[in-house]
């Protein structure tokens, strides 16, 4: 779980610069939520590209939930990012006025996809590439909205567990309130990741690291003293969310099929 944050910063800023350069872009764009993942990503982008080349979109639903809106604004100001604030409540409310639901998850997904839609619109307006901010913990258990917050051009944080993102945040000087607040997907008021997942990130990451990086079987992890129900649930979440980590399958019928045997590197012709 331990990382050398200075070295990770070096790798990730190089990665951001290189991805931009290869794709022929100078500017990056990202959604700034007020949470630690997007804060870390914003700082990395600012250091890699210069703050003028980083567009931060703050997209609260109305006045937002809790202190996130203020934290996001303060951070973008402090980092001197090119910042826009766009309230997503008119779009989201217009939709749910016509198609009401009381399911919070449906509303949350709609908000995540509304933000995605705006991010892609602004990335085209500003000729900028979208930086993803999903961390390894979320990606592995599928705690993200497909075509919502999971959508991006490239993702510097996807191989860092939440615990490691926090270590990097401390190193990068992410302000205290952002670092210490309870992580939340901000899909509804009072929501926190850890209450929804039913585990703290520290507990989750420890088991994920054993299952994934350590290639340990569920039985082996349980034998180390972790509760079986917890290990089994995490393993099930990983299995159930594979579809969020891959492109959808294409029915192969021809001699050469995209994704099957039409295989080029992502960096093709860059």
């Amino acid at each position: 779980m331990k990382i050398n944050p200075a070295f990770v910063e070096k790798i990730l800023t190089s990665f951001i610069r290189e991805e931009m350069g290869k794709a022929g872009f100078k500017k990056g764009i990202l959604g700034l939520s007020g949470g630690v993942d997007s804060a870390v990503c914003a700082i990395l982008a600012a250091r890699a590209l210069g703050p003028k080349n980083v567009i931060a979109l703050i997209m609260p639903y109305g006045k937002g939930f809790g202190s996130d809106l203020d934290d996001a604004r303060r951070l973008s100001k402090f980092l001197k990012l090119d910042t826009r604030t766009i309230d997503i409540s008119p779009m989201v409310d217009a939709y749910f006025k016509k198609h009401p639901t009381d399911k919070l998850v449906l509303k949350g997904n709609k908000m995540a996809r509304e933000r995605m839609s705006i991010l892609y619109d602004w990335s085209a307006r500003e000729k900028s590439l979208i930086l993803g901010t999903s961390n390894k913990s979320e990606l592995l258990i599928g705690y993200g909205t497909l075509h919502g917050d999971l959508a991006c051009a490239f993702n510097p944080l996807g191989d860092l567990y939440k615990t490691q993102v926090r270590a990097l945040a401390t190193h990068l000087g992410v302000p205290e309130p952002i670092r210490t607040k309870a992580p939340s997907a901000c899909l509804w008021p009072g929501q926190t990741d850890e209450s929804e997942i039913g585990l703290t990130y520290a507990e989750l990451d420890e088991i994920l690291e054993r299952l994934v990086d350590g290639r340990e079987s569920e039985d082996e992890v349980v034998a180390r003293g972790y509760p079986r129900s917890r290990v089994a649930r995490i393993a099930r979440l990983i299995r159930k969310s594979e579809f969020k980590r891959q492109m959808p399958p294409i029915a192969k019928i021809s001699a050469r099929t995209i994704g099957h045997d039409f295989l080029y590197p992502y960096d093709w012709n860059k």
Partner: protein
Amino acid sequence: MKIALAQISPVLGDVARNLDLHLETIEKARRAKADLLVFPELSLTGYRLRDLAAETARDPRSSREFKALRAAGRGLSVIVGFVEESPEEPGLFYNSAAFLVQGEITHIHRKIFLPNSGMFEELRFFARGRTVRAFETPWGRAGLLICRDFLHLNAHYLLFAGGAGISITVSAAPGRGVAGEDGFATSRMWEVTGEAVARLTTSVVIYCNRSGFEDGAAFAGGSFIFDPFGNLVARARYVESDFLLAEIDPADIRRARRAMTFKRDDRPEVTLANLERIIHRDED
């Protein structure tokens, strides 16, 4: 000799459910009075396993699933495809097929030619087998190959030279090309090869493929049996699941080898001498 080909669609990565499917199918074959039941390649695990290869691997001597298969397999012979890992070689996973006679494993073949181009990536996940060996069965000497092995001439020759009169291939061959009249274009390749091998080795050629989709790739089905004269005995449906029952006469092997004396006239020592020369680059 009554042969049953189980052209099934295993559940990818779910050994428990696939075991149930095997046990049901064995019962079906028993009721149909089949002498030999053939399952496709990796029938216990599914094909496109990737990292699941390590997690679905079994030691056939000790695994619970093989215990169940051995118990169920009494009264007939069964060929099962699985991922093999033995305690002698921990961390090495073979794409294997086991031949069970009356519930006892009499032969295991480890796939030798692992396809690793285009849509295939078996070398990333499997270790390579090294041996092609004909073995005794209740119907005479036979040989077992897995999928791509079938498309390598030397695999057939080694079985032929080793005395096999029945050549069995288990397969998980996806289909490509949809311009033809029936089935995928690639099914022709397997059928033409099957007929040619039956004729050239004067052997019964049994080919059991699978059905279903995995990650979008369709398996082509079309399992078949050729007699030692190269006549098509039976063919299963293309693409869909099927259970093919067909009768062959092992005495045809003798008849074919009297008529076409390829086996009598074969000179493996000439082959060996020439291979030695080729391998050691001793040009003439």
